[in-house]
């Protein structure tokens, strides 16, 4: 039986990164993820690594670009406004096919917004991290254990597919404490980084890390090749949890901390005889389209629950091919709904079904 440690979500991310062989962290303080920087600042010197506080998020993501280009596992973390600053760098990193892990412990927006938990960066993370045709892997933990586990998996996915992977968490997960078992970390086979710019030593032709193409046909070819890789990621790496969906008339689609609120609401609804289940995307990209399409045959209604104004609704409609009605319930700006709020929505829908 592995030893469990009681930790904050943010600390679990940091420790999992180190345990996954990431010895370089570049960041800039911002609430509610600063514990990651602080943990790294304490731990990295002890394990022969480096925690470097950059002058800005822009600089931090570019330090990550340099470290990743030279073949090193590295991490940066921030929260919503800071991730916006990183978007330029993320686009370049995607264009250069570099692996790295980026953490976004989301807070309320837009603008400076607030410091309470939110899921308002769903669109940004899954559809628009930066300019250009681009995609990154997005993992949405729902517990402190998953904060650790998915961080570890993110490093492997990034290295295997040569693309950034993001942990899209929220302020609640970052701040709450739960037991973590670090034995569960990912240990996949990683291809050798023969493309890295770490000196030719006169033994090979030079490596070039670059996202610039003057010939539009070459640029198009590079994008098409990258999108083929994205297809492979979607085929092999889509992750989700199905909870009580077998007999469900109503399927809630919810991720992260919100999915846990939904589970409590589902228990209450089932006690009242309403058949409700949950489809929890663990990868927000690639999105679990197939299981949702399958559920569209058995379920009568989908309910999307998020801490935003309904950013995931369109993805559910597309995945289910609009076969069944899709409703939305959410709170935003850092407000968290109670299980009773979700139950009320379930009962409203159930009333309409009968």
């Amino acid at each position: 039986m592995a030893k469990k440690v009681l930790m904050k979500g943010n600390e679990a991310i940091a420790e999992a990164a180190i345990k996954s062989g990431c010895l370089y962290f570049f960041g800039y303080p911002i609430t509610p993820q600063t514990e990651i920087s602080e943990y790294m600042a304490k731990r990295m010197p002890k394990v022969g690594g480096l925690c470097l506080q950059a002058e800005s998020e822009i600089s931090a993501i570019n330090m990550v670009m340099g470290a990743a280009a030279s073949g090193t596992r590295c991490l940066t973390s921030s929260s919503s406004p800071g991730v916006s600053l990183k978007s330029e760098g993320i686009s370049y990193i995607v264009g250069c096919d570099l692996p790295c892990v980026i953490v976004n412990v989301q807070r309320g927006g837009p603008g400076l917004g607030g410091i309470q938990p939110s899921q308002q960066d769903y669109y940004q993370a899954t559809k628009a991290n930066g300019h250009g045709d681009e995609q990154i892997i997005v993992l949405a933990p729902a517990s402190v254990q998953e904060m650790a586990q998915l961080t570890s998996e993110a490093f492997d996915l990034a290295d295997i597919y040569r693309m950034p992977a993001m942990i899209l968490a929220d302020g609640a997960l970052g701040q709450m404490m739960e037991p973590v078992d670090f034995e569960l970390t990912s240990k996949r086979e990683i291809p050798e980084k023969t493309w890295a710019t770490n000196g030719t030593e006169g033994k090979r032709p030079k490596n070039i890390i670059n996202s610039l193409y003057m010939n539009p046909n070459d640029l198009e070819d590079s994008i098409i090749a990258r999108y083929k890789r994205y297809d492979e990621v979607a085929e092999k790496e889509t992750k989700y949890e199905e909870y009580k969906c077998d007999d469900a008339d109503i399927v809630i689609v919810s991720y992260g901390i919100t999915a846990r609120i939904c589970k409590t609401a589902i228990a209450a609804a089932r006690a009242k005889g309403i058949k409700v289940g949950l489809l929890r995307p663990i990868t927000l990209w690639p999105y679990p389209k197939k299981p949702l399409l399958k559920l569209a045959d058995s379920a009568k209604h989908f309910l999307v629950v998020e801490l935003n104004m309904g950013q995931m609704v369109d993805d559910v409609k597309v995945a289910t091919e609009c076969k069944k009605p899709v409703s939305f319930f959410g709170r935003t700006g850092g407000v968290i709904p109670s299980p009773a709020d979700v139950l009320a929505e379930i009962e409203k829908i159930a009333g309409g079904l009968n």
Partner: protein
Amino acid sequence: MVVFDRPKSLSPVPFHYCPGCTHGIVHRLVAEALDELDICGKAVGIAPVGCSVFAYNYFECDMIEAAHGRAPAVATGVKRTHPDNIVFTYQGDGDLAAIGTAETVHVGARGENITIIFINNCIYGMTGGQMAPTTLPGQVTTTSPYGRDRRIQGSPIHVCEMLSTLDGVAYAERVAVNTVPNIKKAKKAIVKAFQNQIDKKGLSIVEVLSTCPTNWGMTPEAALKWVETDMIPFYPLGVYKDTDVKLLNPTSTKEGN
């Protein structure tokens, strides 16, 4: 006997630079320095957006193309994870002194053990002759068509003078490549800037006053003269800082912590 040949660190491809532009001279000097110090195999060059954006085609070492202004941050990422590599950036004035000012100042503050080759030609070349942070007072550009007016567009930045105030900057020298004697001095400065990195002395920057005949609207010859008559009086050549900051902030993580 071969008396003049292409440096091994310079790729055998033609430059894309305009006639009379001195980027080619500076590229050659950098390549000669890499050859003479025998560091091409360890070198990683970073050229961000600007006329030198294609530098990855011209040097035989590993190369990274960075976002506009971000080369010093990218270089930090390379050097901190690979302290034994020789890391240099090759940046223009808009890149280094406008959009990348924060990155420039902070590699200086941190005393990153890297080498910066800074091309100052008082203008944005790649985008076709707009005002740069180093554009001289009164200088006509496409975005200062009546001449740079300090009351409206502010004053030029003296990069070497500014950076030399930072503890982490080991070496800052301004050179020019408008005459043969100046080219020889520039070569010496560039070699020193790389040698400093080998000796782990801290940040070294060589500011090279360079020409842009196309966007200055001059013949190559007139451009070389303009460096002498207008640029050098405003940006005096010389060593602004020469020290050893390795005890302040060594790059190796083990030593650093």
